């Protein structure tokens, strides 16, 4: 999908304050590029989309789309939302409660100048693509959560915006529909010549649809790049958590890594200074007794939480090295672990991936 990046289409430098919350970030999206925005709850993802759509004026910075300045406080420019062609899927859909599903979809088309029958036809077509054409005549306040989300998605895609802003477009969908909507969306976006910003909590969605990921935390960009770049060297615990990895901040001195609480780990390759450490949960072993043999790192600890995940189990252990270990449900039963159990954890030095905390 590289090579699709042509000209920079969206060029946004954003400073915004809502209530106590501040958002400061720069975002460039090329024509045809899909950027996925991920971040913890309350990190400002929705605020970012609202700002791009013109529903929240900038307090500083500048937003340009396709060369047109949309918002620039310094130059006193503020293009109103209806003149922006930045179609947004709202997190809570905001279907018009007094209209039917098809009238909701037709609304956007009519607003963009389509005739009545044309709008109706295209609305029905889009409802069909979202597999909700049988609900065309339902009042939108009678739709179920997932149905409403699909109608809302049809509504925004039908208007064919220049910039597409999708706020968790698949959160309420059932598994089957989610796969097919994700596919539809990907096909649509592959042909789509505009820019797209997609907010999601699901790295799978992001990986399937987006060319690039932007991680927002507390109103600022924490990291960006492809899924692979981000997950090999995550810079925050949120990002490591996205892929289920353990992240530790350490200070390195040769192959000895010292945690802030004084505990130490042995790495395979030497380094120095402040470093980040990633350990895959699968590479951490748990034992009832002190293990014999090769692992260079082993320490006694206690189980703090046990998360079941189908046939696999994630066991969180506490001090001195708070990490999550992933074992099978069978091992869990064999070890007889419960929360609070004493346990030995071990990890091979080669499984400890170290990289500088700053830069890179």
């Amino acid at each position, binding site marked *: 999908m590289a090579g699709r990046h042509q000209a920079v289409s969206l060029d946004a430098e954003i400073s915004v304050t809502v209530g106590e919350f501040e958002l400061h970030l720069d975002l460039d999206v090329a024509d045809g590029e899909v950027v996925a925005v991920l971040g913890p709850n309350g990190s400002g993802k929705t605020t970012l989309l609202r700002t791009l759509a013109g529903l929240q004026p900038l307090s500083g910075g500048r937003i340009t789309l396709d060369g047109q300045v949309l918002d620039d406080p310094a130059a006193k420019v503020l293009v109103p*939302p209806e003149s922006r062609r*930045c179609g947004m899927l709202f997190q809570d859909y*905001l279907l018009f409660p007094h209209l039917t599903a098809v009238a909701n979809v037709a609304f*956007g088309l009519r*607003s963009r100048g389509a005739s009545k029958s044309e709008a109706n036809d295209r609305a029905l077509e889009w409802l069909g693509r979202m597999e909700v054409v049988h609900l065309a005549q339902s009042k939108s306040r009678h739709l179920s959560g997932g149905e409403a989300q699909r109608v809302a998605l049809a*509504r925004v895609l039908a208007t064919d915006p220049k910039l597409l802003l999708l706020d968790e477009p698949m959160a309420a969908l059932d598994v089957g529909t989610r796969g097919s909507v994700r596919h539809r969306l990907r096909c649509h976006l592959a042909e789509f010549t505009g820019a797209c910003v997609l907010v999601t909590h699901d790295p799978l969605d992001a990986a399937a649809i987006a060319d690039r990921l932007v991680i927002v935390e507390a109103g600022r960009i924490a990291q960006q790049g492809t899924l692979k770049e981000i997950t090999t060297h995550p810079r925050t615990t949120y990002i490591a958590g996205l892929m289920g990895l353990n992240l530790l901040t350490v200070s390195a001195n040769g192959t000895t890594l010292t945690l802030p609480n004084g505990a130490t780990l042995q790495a395979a390759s030497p380094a120095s200074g402040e470093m980040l450490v990633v350990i895959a949960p699968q590479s951490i072993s748990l034992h009832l007794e002190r293990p014999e043999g090769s692992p260079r790192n082993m320490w006694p600890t206690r189980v703090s939480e046990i998360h079941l995940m189908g046939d696999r189990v994630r066991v969180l252990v506490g001090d001195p090295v708070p990490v999550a270990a992933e074992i099978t449900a069978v091992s869990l039963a064999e070890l007889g672990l419960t929360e609070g159990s004493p346990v030995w954890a071990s990890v091979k030095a080669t499984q400890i991936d170290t990289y500088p905390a700053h830069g890179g």
Partner: protein
Amino acid sequence: MTAAERSRRPPVFVLVVASLTVAFLAVPLVGLLTKASWGTLWRDLSSPFALDALRLSLICSLWATGLSLVLGVPLAWVLARTRLPGRNLVRALAILPMVLPPVVGGVALLLAFGRDALLGRPLYSLFGIQFPYTTAGAVLAETFVAMPFLIVTVEAALRSMDSRYEEAAANLGAGRWRTFRRVTLPMIAPSLIAGTALTWARALGEFGATITFAGDIQGRTQTLPLAVYLELQSNEGVAVAMSLALLTVSIVVLVSLRGRWLGAIRP
């Protein structure tokens, strides 16, 4: 018994109070029915005096309601949706004509639109438009007194509406006017209808401002409340019959409008 019929019964206490209220409103109206001169009802009502008054009442009150909608809704929107300075002052101003004793309202109108007054003089000398003691004046008086009811109701409705739906409409490319017409208005419809009904009712019952500003001239400014006031002193039965006619007409209008409007919005 269907599921809908099984929905909860309202609390007895509330039903008791509601019934009391209904009785309080109904008994006087029933009393009126006993007082009407039924025998001569048709003759009384078909006299030119009564017909003129009824016709004039309907014309003036509908004009006043229309003017209130045209003038009042934009003001309500500005009060509810913008942050212009002086908003609170304007809001207070919009409430004042409601509180002013209507006769004083009439005096105030004379001071503004009288022949020698601030606005009245130029209007007369430039356009030959004269308000006092004309039907236009009666309309103006009713509008002045009734419009605040619309402004207050519509502003309150706009405030309690979730304005994010308007954002969604704008995002879909709807300009302000389209958003207002297709999203805002339907969503505040119950209150808009209520406000319009209140305004119309207030205009229809207007007495003090009309008689002071526009006089009591048959066929020109003598609306039904004025005619009734006059008639009440000499012929109570006829006055009551005329009032009942007014009631009937207004109920018919309200009910049919309500059905029509609400029908269009939530079937």
